[in-house]
C-alpha cells in the first residue's frame, strides 16, 4: 500500500465523518434568539451578581474601615467622656456619660479628628472649665482595643501627651490609665456598678479593681467620688494600684495644688528673671557698643581734621609753587622779547619818556 493511498483514504474518511456534523448554534431563528437571549441573560445576571458581590465587599471594607468601632478612649475626671475611634484612629463618636461630660462636649466636635488631637482638645477644655483646678486633679484614661498591643501603644502616647499638657498648665494632677478590650458583653459585677451608681464603664472597672485590692473599702464609699477624691483616698490609704493602673513613675498620684501654684509663680519669676538678664545683657552690649562708637567717632573726627589740615597745607603749598612758577614764566617772557627786538611796552614808554626829556632840554 502506498503512502498516498493511506493519506487520501484518511482524508476522505474524515470528510465523510464530519459532513453531517451541524453547527450547534445554527438552529431555527426563534430557538437561536432564545439561546442568545439566555446566553446574554445568564451573562448579564452573572455580571450583575459579581458586581454586587464586589460592591458589597468593597462597601463592607469601606464601612468596616471607617464606621466600625475599633477602639475607645475614655476620660474620667468628674466629667465622663468616651470617644470611639475607627480602624484609622479617627473619632467616629463622642459620648458624654454625665451632665458634666455633656457640658464639656457641648461646643466641641472632634468627629473625624485623630485620637491624639481629640484628646488634646478634651483635656484643654477640662482645664479651661476648671475641672482640674484641685489637688490630685488626675485624669483616669481608659483605652479599649481588642488588640492589646495597640491599646498599650495608644495608652503610652496619650499618657505622655496629656501629662505634658497638664504640666504646661501647672495642673496638680497626672494621668492614671488602664487598658481593656472592647467588650460586647459587660461583666455582671461591672454592669451592676454602672447601673446602680450611674457610672461610666471605665470608672466602674477602676473602682471595681480598687475594691478588690482593699476589702475594707465599700462600693458606696467611693462610687460617687471624683477621680481626684479617689486619688486622695488611695494616697492616704497607701493602696498600691500600680498593678491596675499605669502612671508616670516620677509623678505623685496626689499632687498638691498649692505647691503647683507656687511652682507656677516660681517658674514665672524665673522666666522674668531670665528675661531681665537677657535685657540687661542686651543693654550692656549696646552701651559697650555706644562707647565703642563714641571712641570711633572721636577718632574719626580727629582723623578728619588731620586730613583737612593736610589738605589745606597741600593747597597752600601748591598755590605757593604755582605762584612762583608763574613769576618765573613772566620774567622769561620779557627777556625773550628783548632779545628778539620786540619792543617792550615799558621800554617804549621809557623810550618816549627819554625822548620827551630830550626835547624839553633842546628848547
Amino acid at each position: 500500500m502506498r503512502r498516498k493511498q493511506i493519506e487520501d483514504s484518511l482524508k476522505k474518511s474524515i470528510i465523510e465523518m464530519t459532513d453531517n456534523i451541524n453547527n450547534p448554534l445554527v438552529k431555527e431563528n426563534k430557538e437561536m434568539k432564545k439561546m442568545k437571549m439566555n446566553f446574554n441573560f445568564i451573562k448579564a445576571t452573572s455580571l450583575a451578581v459579581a458586581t454586587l458581590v464586589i460592591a458589597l465587599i468593597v462597601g463592607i471594607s469601606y464601612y468596616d474601615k471607617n464606621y466600625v468601632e475599633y477602639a475607645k478612649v475614655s476620660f474620667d475626671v468628674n466629667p465622663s467622656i468616651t470617644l470611639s475611634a475607627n480602624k484609622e484612629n479617627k473619632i467616629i463618636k463622642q459620648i458624654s456619660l454625665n451632665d458634666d461630660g455633656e457640658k464639656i462636649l457641648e461646643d466641641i466636635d472632634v468627629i473625624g479628628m485623630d485620637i491624639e488631637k481629640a484628646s488634646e482638645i478634651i483635656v484643654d477644655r477640662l482645664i479651661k472649665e476648671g475641672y482640674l483646678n484641685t489637688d490630685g486633679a488626675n485624669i483616669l484614661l481608659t483605652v479599649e482595643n481588642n488588640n492589646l498591643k495597640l491599646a498599650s501603644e495608644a495608652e503610652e502616647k496619650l499618657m505622655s501627651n496629656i501629662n505634658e499638657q497638664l504640666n504646661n498648665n501647672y495642673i496638680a494632677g497626672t494621668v492614671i490609665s488602664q487598658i481593656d478590650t472592647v467588650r460586647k458583653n459587660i461583666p455582671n459585677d461591672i454592669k451592676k456598678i454602672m447601673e446602680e451608681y450611674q457610672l461610666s464603664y471605665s470608672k466602674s472597672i477602676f473602682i471595681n479593681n480598687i475594691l478588690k485590692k482593699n476589702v475594707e473599702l465599700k462600693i458606696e464609699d467611693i462610687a460617687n467620688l471624683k477621680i481626684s477624691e479617689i486619688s486622695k483616698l488611695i494616697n492616704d490609704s497607701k493602696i498600691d494600684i500600680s498593678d491596675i493602673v499605669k502612671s508616670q513613675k516620677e509623678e505623685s498620684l496626689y499632687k498638691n495644688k498649692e505647691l503647683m501654684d507656687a511652682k507656677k509663680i516660681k517658674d514665672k519669676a524665673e522666666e522674668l528673671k531670665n528675661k531681665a538678664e537677657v535685657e540687661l545683657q542686651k543693654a550692656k552690649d549696646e552701651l559697650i557698643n555706644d562707647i565703642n562708637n563714641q571712641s570711633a567717632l572721636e577718632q574719626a573726627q580727629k582723623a578728619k581734621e588731620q586730613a583737612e589740615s593736610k589738605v589745606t597745607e597741600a593747597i597752600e603749598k601748591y598755590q605757593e609753587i604755582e605762584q612762583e612758577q608763574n613769576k618765573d614764566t613772566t620774567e622769561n617772557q620779557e627777556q625773550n622779547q628783548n632779545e628778539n627786538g620786540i619792543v617792550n611796552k615799558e621800554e617804549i614808554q621809557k623810550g618816549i619818556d627819554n625822548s620827551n626829556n630830550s626835547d624839553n632840554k633842546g628848547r
Partner: protein
Amino acid sequence: MSVFNNNIIDDRLMEKIKNKDIKAIEILFNNSKKMIFSIALSITKSKSISEDITQDVIIKIIENIDKYQYNDKPLSWIYTLTKNHSLNILKKEKRNTDMENINENNLLKRGNDPIDNLILSTALSILTSEEREIVLLHNSGLKHKEIAIIYDKPLSTILSKYNRAIVKMKNYLEK
C-alpha cells in the same frame, strides 16, 4: 485541495466572535470542525462521541471566548479545549480503548469502501495517541507547520513522527 484554511481562523476572527458575530461563528465552525473531530476521534476512537464533542467544543469556544488571549495562536487554544473535553468525556464514558474492541462499523457508514474503514481502524488501533493525533490532524487539513505550532515542537519532530506513523501503518496493512 486543502480542507482547512487556518488563515481564516486568526485573532481577527476571534475578535469578531467575541463581539457575537454570528457569521464569524459560522466561519469558525466550518473551518475547525474537522480538526476538532480528528482530535476527539484520536482520543475516543468513537465516531458518535466525537461528533458530540465537536459540537460541544464549538459551544465551549463561544462560551469561553472572553478567556482567549490574543496571541495569534487560536488553533492551539482550540486544540487545548478539544483535548481537555475529549479526555473528560472519555473518563465519563469509560470506554475501553483496547484494539480488539474497535468496531469498524462504528466509524464509517455502511456502504463505504471497506479499505477506508480498514485504514482508519488501523490508524486508531496501532498508532500511539500522539501519532494518531498527528496523522488525523494532518489529514483533516492542517499543515505540519501548523501542527508543530499547536504542539509547540520543532517542525522536524512533527514530520518525523508523522512519517514514522505512516510507515507503521503501511507495514501493518501490507502484512
